[in-house]
């Protein structure tokens, strides 16, 4: 754990890291992909559908970056359009209807910044996910596997449990963006990365995540087996929680409370 915060950012962005689809294929069985938001389009940056965790059906949703240049281009480098967020919400509502738990894999530098994305309400799409996820009455577990870029990542992470890979990062703004706004110098990204407290250890100590997943055997069978076992155990616990949505409310309600002084 000797890497600096900015080294972690670079590791999190590495195109050789397993992507959302790798996790889906290796942890679950019988993945069936569903497409489209039923409003405008299908967004390839977000993949979703149903699969079996051991023998139980779950809804899985992942932001997909792709590995090769062609894939990455097709997936828009994992930067979702509003349609992606609307598709994810549609699938989450479907999960709620059929009593399936929801598992999300998050990996994005952020929601896409484009003319069309703005015209079709990027802000509104993210807001609606945050609003609706807060009261979905099935368990939700979100795992940040690479980059957790601001609202575009949070839109799939209003969950009962949020976990991070050891070298994943989670931040309100990219270190480069922060440095250029605050210090008019994108080269100060290293300072910004350290100041933003964006590593998995930082997120855990701030109470934003519950668990850090080791990357010692990343991409190997044992790695995925371990995550499958952890998910199974955690879902067992969450499924018997009669105060699930109240506990989810409290989980987010308490964040930042200690950062506020009353005088």
């Amino acid at each position: 754990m000797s890497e600096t915060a900015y080294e972690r950012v670079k590791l999190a962005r590495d195109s050789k890291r397993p992507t959302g689809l790798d996790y889906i294929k290796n942890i679950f069985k019988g993945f069936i992909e569903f497409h489209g938001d039923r409003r405008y389009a299908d967004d390839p940056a977000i993949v979703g559908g149903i699969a079996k965790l051991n023998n139980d059906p779950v809804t899985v949703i992942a932001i997909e970056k792709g590995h090769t240049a062609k894939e990455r281009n097709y997936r828009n480098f994992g930067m979702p359009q509003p349609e992606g967020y609307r598709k994810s919400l549609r699938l989450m509502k479907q999960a709620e209807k059929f009593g399936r738990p929801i598992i999300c894999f998050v990996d994005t530098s952020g929601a896409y910044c484009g003319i069309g994305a703005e015209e079709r309400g990027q802000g509104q799409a993210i807001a609606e996910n945050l609003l609706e996820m807060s009261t979905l009455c099935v368990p939700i577990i979100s795992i940040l596997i690479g980059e957790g870029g601001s609202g575009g990542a949070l839109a799939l992470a209003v969950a009962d449990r949020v976990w991070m890979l050891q070298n994943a990062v989670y931040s309100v703004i990219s270190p480069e963006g922060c440095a250029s706004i605050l210090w008019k110098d994108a080269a100060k990204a290293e300072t910004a990365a350290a100041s933003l407290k964006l590593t998995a250890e930082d997120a855990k100590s701030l109470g934003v995540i519950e668990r850090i997943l080791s990357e010692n055997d990343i991409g190997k069978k044992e790695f995925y087996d371990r995550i499958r076992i952890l998910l199974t155990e955690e879902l067992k616990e969450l499924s018997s929680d009669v105060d699930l949505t109240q506990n989810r409310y409290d989980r987010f309600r308490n964040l930042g409370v200690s950062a506020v002084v009353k005088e």
Partner: protein
Amino acid sequence: MIADKGSFHELYSNMKANNPLNFPGYNDKIETVRVASSETEAVVCGTAAIGKQKCCLFVMESYFMMGSMGSAVGEKITSLFEYAVQYRLPVIGFTVSGGARMQEGLLSLMQMAKTSAAVKRHSDAGLLYIAVLTDPTTGGVTASFAMEADIILAEPGATVGFAGARVIEQTTKKALPEGFQKSEFVLEHGFIDSIVPRSNQKKYLSELLKMHHSGRAMI
């Protein structure tokens, strides 16, 4: 002003952000802004009457770090929605914001989820929430409580969007369409209900409150 004369009672004026991440320069920045603005944070919350109907009111402040949302802003807005559920009051909110306050890192990002959950509870209680978007309303505030109201109004010519126009231009290398992200453009694309100039807002809001029967008469 929007509120009836003498009806505004401020809530949570004692809530201030400390510097939870020890972010460089944040203490000095916030102290300077506090002195210059004589406000303690980027939002003022309270109860008020509009056209003799009681409601909860929040007004964000652009001159306080560009209305950015940190832990204190999130806590104040969340507390106000919880108060409104408890006393069964409508909420009217005037937004202005550059987005989440980056000096509070992840904690400011989490305020988007926290305020959204509070808005949802208020909504599920059958209560009315009206947002009035003023210039500019962007970033994490657009992507949370600004876009979650039952009725969303905006002021003429106000910038309303998620990503900053400059960032979009740099990302896409395309010229932005005329009037991009202005309230008229956002209205045309179906994301707000109406554009209401400031001079009409009091009458407009009091009419909406009356039509929802949720405003209690002030005695």
